């Protein structure tokens, strides 16, 4: 989730506020796939299909709504994108209510409860953890090693410079948006049995996603892993030692502490003007 937001921001310098809704769509698609077509055993196939569907949806949204502002010289792109993506979020959420109703759907479990050494853990959470790590690793490898990944790094670092190299930036903007939303969609599909499936199910992950990005510092991939872990530990310790009802607050307290010590986040770099 954080990866997706971060990636789109890195490439287009635009924050996609409707990420939570793409997460929700991923979860819904996964639910429909598992209950009507695939069955619980093939949940991993469902994750791939959900991610693909969300990818095309994201790319389409970018093409229709976001791309027009990158053609020609328009000021205030950021404001435009903010309004468009927030509107998207409200629209998609209500569309989900219209289609699915205000119900909470429970997808089948991906795996039964298991035990790591002496630690009992829910199978769903283990699957989500492994799945997320796998996605991160895959994404990292893709960005660092492939030609396309290098082009993405180029676009993020120097938009004019990558154009003089012959990269069609408008096409890569669309791809980036698609990949970013696909990461959210895959997240939604992976976490469906944990967060359950309903029109608002993308809200909490979005808030977490932004928390993690702010803690990590915009633009850092390893930072996301560390920040995610830190946030998780803070929440667990808080609920164990203080009070489990305030679980969402501990993350914010951590955020405030980190920002007051390192304003750019743990791994963020100060913006450099040349």
């Amino acid at each position, binding site marked *: 989730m954080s990866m997706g937001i971060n990636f789109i921001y890195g490439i287009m310098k635009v924050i996609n506020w409707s990420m939570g809704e793409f997460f929700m769509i991923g979860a819904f698609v996964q639910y429909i796939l598992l209950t009507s077509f695939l069955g619980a055993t093939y949940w991993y196939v469902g994750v791939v299909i959900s991610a693909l569907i969300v990818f095309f949806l994201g790319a389409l949204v970018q093409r229709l709504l976001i791309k027009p502002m990158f053609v020609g010289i328009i000021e205030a792109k950021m404001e435009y994108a903010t309004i468009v993506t927030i509107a998207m979020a409200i629209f998609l959420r209500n569309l989900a209510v219209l289609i699915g109703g205000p119900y909470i759907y429970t997808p089948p479990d991906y795996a039964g409860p298991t035990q790591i050494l002496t630690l009992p853990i829910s199978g769903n959470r283990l699957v989500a953890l492994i799945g997320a790590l796998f996605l991160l690793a895959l994404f990292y490898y893709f960005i660092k090693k492939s030609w396309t990944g290098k082009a993405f790094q180029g676009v993020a*670092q*120097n938009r*004019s410079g*990558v*154009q*003089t*190299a*012959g*990269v*069609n930036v408008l096409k890569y903007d669309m791809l980036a948006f698609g990949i970013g939303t696909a990461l959210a969609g895959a997240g939604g599909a992976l976490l469906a049995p944990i967060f359950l499936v309903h029109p608002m199910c993308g809200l909490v992950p979005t808030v977490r996603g932004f928390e993690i990005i702010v803690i990590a510092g915009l633009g850092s991939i390893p930072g996301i892993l560390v920040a995610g872990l830190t946030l998780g530990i803070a929440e667990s310790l808080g609920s164990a030692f203080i009070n489990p009802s305030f679980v969402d607050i501990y993350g914010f307290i951590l955020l405030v502490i980190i920002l007051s010590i390192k304003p750019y986040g743990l791994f963020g770099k100060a913006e450099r003007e040349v």
Partner: protein
Amino acid sequence: MSMLSIENVTAGYVEEIDILRDVSLEVKEGAITGIIGANGAGKSTVLKTIFGFLHPRQGKIKFQGREIQNNLPYQMKEMGISYMLQEHSTFHDLSINDNLLLGAWTFRQDKKRVNRRMEEIYNFFPVLSERKAEKAGYLSGGLLRMLSVGKEIMSEPTLLMIDEPSVGLQPNIVTEIYDLLIKIAQQGTTILIVDQNIMKALEVSDYMYMLDMGEVKQGGPKEDFEEDIREMIKVSLMAE
């Protein structure tokens, strides 16, 4: 023969404000053409308009006989035009090697050619080959400029456009960069260069154009210019 011609081009960034007014100029094949002029005369805008970062409101741009005024930058690159930006066109967080690799983007499928070009560029810039794995962000201004040149000539362009190669560099490095450009031109690349450093531009160019307030004041073979140079320098000094 003229490789590139600009015919009565009017262009600007914001509506109703023209930076270039009815500009016409020609770039002859195999020659070095220089554009000079004061700050804000529209020199860089000419290059941006040719490369498609900016589309002209009026007029035509022809490259090897084909009209290109509506093309996008990546299409220009595919046609064989390279453009070295005034600001750095390199990627600070990528290694020198990756920076050069991105210069080979248009023929990335052709592994053999990529490897051959990499080797040739490293032979051309031995300093860069010693620091392959270093991030471009750690390079000095002069080396960065060399890396930019390297990245842009990776694709063996037919036309190389260079914006202010000497700006912000110490004199001996400026000479080094210009020597490189002459070497590149001798290998058969046509060059269009924009520079505020009139003396340097005059030294290397075969043809010159002088821009002032977005209009071509004078243009033609360098010899025709020699008499006016004194006047031109005076004008440009006064303008600054």
